[in-house]
């Protein structure tokens, strides 16, 4: 396989600034790879060929001209990236994976997109997702599921299955995702990639189509911990357009990843994130990772978060409540799909109803109905009110745990990738896949998932999740990079080198 597509983003950035390769070559190599394998993987909803190449050539021209402009280029300039199709982009459609927005072109760029354009990263295209980011398998996309590059009959996780699969299939070195209950980390786990949900407020949400505003967070998807740190630094920081954005500067993330060490750190195993419901092969790889950390000088402690067992329940009240309000704007009046009722009078209520009936898929409707109910007069206190109290309890559990440990560790998801269709008719089983990732969203703390190896029983990737206190994203990258290098030393290279061959590559092995 072409080395330009198997390199990490940091490696590509180094090669680009050394003028060993051009951005056009790198970008073209990825576009070629998309052309070669995306028919199988279906990670992309839109491929942005022309604009990506234009930006790449621009970077090459600036670099060739030298001088101040070249010196002023962002270190990541010219490294291509894919964007989850929940994030609005001028010049490309943004669908949120929904029929209701099919064909809609945003007149404005999300803040993260503005930063990516300013840094001159060619945008390869928009990646697939569960409709409005609601799902754990990408099967709820209105435009068909994405497939897991490790096994095309299996799900790539969700909702950000497209971004994770694109990175796992070497279609992009980097991607952006959004994580409301695990939508970056769980796809990372099941595709053998790295995914980070930053501290709530660390990356601007302006231009990320809201699912659940108090839980949503944009974050990086990559094949190395360092790459994720580089991307979070690039897109993060305070944004006056997002009132919930933090004023802290997160500019030591890449340095933390490069320093990677665990010596003297207290790492807490969360008692409640394991056992029943967790696949043996997942638990085995998790224990291996813990032992590696212990061997490298970390102090391993066990912590208890007794209220985590209520997290899923609270999440499935708070999230749909916010969904029911956030998705109200999709009504056919101003943009997107408009459906007229088949018969009967043509009133605004009926046009809104017909549009929403035709435009939303089953999972979106399920959550809108749940949330509408939970917020209703007479039920609010019992549902939304109680769930908010649980949220406070979970935050206190984290506070107590972080008093005993510098960092927490758990499996990212209870299982490896399941088969397409397996849980589609069983929403509760699907929701349970996020049991280990949801607490971080409820508390606003950062979480990172990195590959922990392959499960013995099915040979599929297992994810290890690290959780840090709010604003301590750098700590995640430091320990994540340390664990990554310990694991890769064992494997003799990145885990993705073991992934099956896709597309027209005949030679097999990855360089």
């Amino acid at each position, binding site marked *: 396989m072409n080395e330009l597509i198997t390199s990490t983003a940091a490696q590509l950035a180094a090669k680009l600034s050394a003028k060993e390769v051009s951005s056009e070559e790198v970008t073209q190599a990825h576009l070629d790879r998309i052309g070669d394998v995306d028919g199988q993987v279906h990670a992309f909803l839109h491929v942005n060929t022309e604009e990506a190449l234009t930006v790449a050539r621009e970077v090459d021209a600036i670099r060739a001209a030298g001088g101040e402009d070249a010196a002023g280029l962002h270190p990541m300039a010219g490294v291509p990236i894919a964007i989850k199709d929940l*994030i*609005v982009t001028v010049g490309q459609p*943004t669908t*949120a994976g929904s029929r209701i*927005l099919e064909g*809609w072109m*945003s*007149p*404005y760029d*999300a803040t993260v997109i503005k930063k990516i354009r300013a840094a001159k990263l060619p945008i390869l295209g928009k990646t697939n997702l569960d409709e409005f980011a609601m799902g754990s398998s990408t099967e709820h996309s209105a435009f068909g599921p994405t497939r897991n590059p490790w096994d095309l009959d299996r799900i790539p996780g969700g909702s950000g299955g497209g971004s994770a699969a694109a990175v796992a299939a070497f279609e992009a070195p980097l991607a952006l995702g959004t994580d409301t209950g695990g939508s970056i980390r769980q796809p990372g786990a099941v595709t053998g990639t790295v995914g980070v949900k930053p501290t709530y407020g660390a990356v601007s*949400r*302006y*231009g*990320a*189509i*809201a699912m*659940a*505003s*108090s839980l949503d967070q944009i974050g990086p998807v990559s094949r190395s911990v360092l790459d994720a740190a580089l991307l979070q630094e690039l897109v993060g920081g305070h944004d*006056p*357009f*997002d*009132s*919930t954005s933090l004023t802290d500067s997160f500019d030591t993330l890449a340095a933390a990843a490069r320093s990677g060490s665990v010596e003297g750190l207290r790492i807490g195993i969360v008692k409640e994130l394991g056992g029943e419901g967790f696949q043996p092969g997942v638990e085995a790889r998790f224990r291996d990772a813990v032992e590696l950390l212990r061997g490298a000088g970390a102090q391993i402690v066990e912590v208890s978060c007794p209220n985590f067992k209520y997290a899923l329940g609270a999440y499935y009240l708070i999230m749909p*409540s*916010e969904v*029911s*309000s956030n998705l*109200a*704007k*999709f*009504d056919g*009046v*101003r*943009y997107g799909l408009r459906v007229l009722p088949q018969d009967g009078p043509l009133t*605004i*209520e009926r046009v*809104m109803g017909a549009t929403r009936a035709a435009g939303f898929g089953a999972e979106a409707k399920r959550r809108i109905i749940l949330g*509408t109910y939970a*917020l*209703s*007069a007479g039920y*609010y206190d019992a549902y*939304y009110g109680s769930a908010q109290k649980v949220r406070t309890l979970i935050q206190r559990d984290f506070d107590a745990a972080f008093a005993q440990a510098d960092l927490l560790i758990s499996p990212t998801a209870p299982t490896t990738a399941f088969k397409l269709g397996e849980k589609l008719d069983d929403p509760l089983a699907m929701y349970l896949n996020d049991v280990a990732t949801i607490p971080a969203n409820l508390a606003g703390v950062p979480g990172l998932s990195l590959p922990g190896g392959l499960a013995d029983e099915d040979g599929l990737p297992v994810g290890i999740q690290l959780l840090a206190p709010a604003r301590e994203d750098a700590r995640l990258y430091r320990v994540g990079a340390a664990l990554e290098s310990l694991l890769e030393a064992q494997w003799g290279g990145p885990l993705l080198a073991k992934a099956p061959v896709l597309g027209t590559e005949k030679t097999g092995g990855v360089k």
Partner: protein
Amino acid sequence: MADATLTFDEAMEQFDPVLGFEVHVELNTKTKMFSSAPNAFGDDPNTNVNEVDLGLPGVLPVVNKAAVESSIKIGLALNCEIAESCRFARKNYFYPDTPKNFQTSQYDEPIAHDGWIDIELEDGEVFRVEIERAHMEEDAGKLTHLGGAAGRIQGAEYSLVDYNRAGVPLVEIVTKPIVGAGRRAPELARAYVAAIREIVKNLGVSDARMERGNVRCDANVSLMPKGATKFGIRSETKNVNSLRSVEHAVRFEIQRHAAVLAAGAKVTQETRHWHEDTRTTTAGRPKSDADDYRYFPEPDLVPIHASREWVESLRAQLPEPPAERRKRLKTAWGYSDPEFRDVVNAGVMDAIEETISAGASAAAARKWWMGEIVGRAKVADVDPAELGVSAAAIVELNGLVEGGKLNNKMAGQVLDGVIAGEGTPTQVMEARGLVLVSDDGPLLEAIDAALAAQPDVADKIRAGKVQAVGAIVGGVMKATRGQADAGRVKELILERLGVSA
């Protein structure tokens, strides 16, 4: 079918009215409540909008600090408590003038609460109106329904929407139930809304133009049998947007409720539409306390913390309340009740204050404004201030009269010249050749001529009928073409005839 009504007197014999008002005040901030789009009136539809106002996918609100400051000022002016911390909430309902299909408003945590305002009616009776809360929210867009008869959404062929107004900052001021107004309820309604309008205008936080919808009133009315304490069922008449209409709407609703109750029926809890042409209301939509807007805290905004230092610094910036200012000026100027009321009603209180501080006496300032300028403004159909007479010009003009350079008639001509833009009073006086004849010689000649022309009058005066002197003065003034000091002329006549005044 028109609703039955009792006469107002009949209604008042049987029932006590209870009032309540929700007044929406549009703030005159440069930008909108949650976006950087301009807050401006009268521009082409859908031009003062950005992605936030249109509720496009992915947008987030950001609170306008100037709007928060204006809201705190309104709260302080209404003697409210200002919450140390308050939040926005989402009020969820589907309607095409609301781009997000929810309104970002305040629900259980308003920025200002528990205030009061004293309302003085024309005869000086004062009612204290308790303020429940004043909260911040955003305005909706404007819908125009076309093709239907009623101009309402039902029956319209199509509707046009203008989102320029969507997101304009609003403060909604809600009273507690107002009891005890009795037959003065309609007057009180008008005076309350007038007072709110005056306060927000005086604060400079709103243009306060009711005809543009800057101040909009929803009036709640219910009746209870005389002497009862349990409130009746209320109606809410929406968007009563002139002071006169507020008074009429409350009066009509009292009469309508009275007819319903007197017939033994129940008032329907509903919104009512006000019709200015017929001065009646018609039924709107049923409204119950169970209307479910699924309020929940706005997750895209963080709570607003109003530090005590901030609140106190805003309090220090508050202008003198209009009612207190009026009281102070009336005492300082020594005007009688009717004199002062006329000044206020003529809209020249500010002008008089300015004239006095420029050096005129209170009596002189009133004489010029009320006696001369208001009448001229009425003829020209403009506000007195628009005639462009400066306080300095009035002081100068008054000095010319008091110094004996001009008589009142000539001063009026000079004022006309000033209004016509001919210059300062002195310049006008000189240019028009208006010189008072003050040399006694020519005056005595004219007096002798006048006395000779009217010997019978001269005899009357000699006999002690001093008031008859006017006829001789008139003759002298005529002979001097008005350019004589009438007072001096009178003195000289009496002197001539050996009569003491």
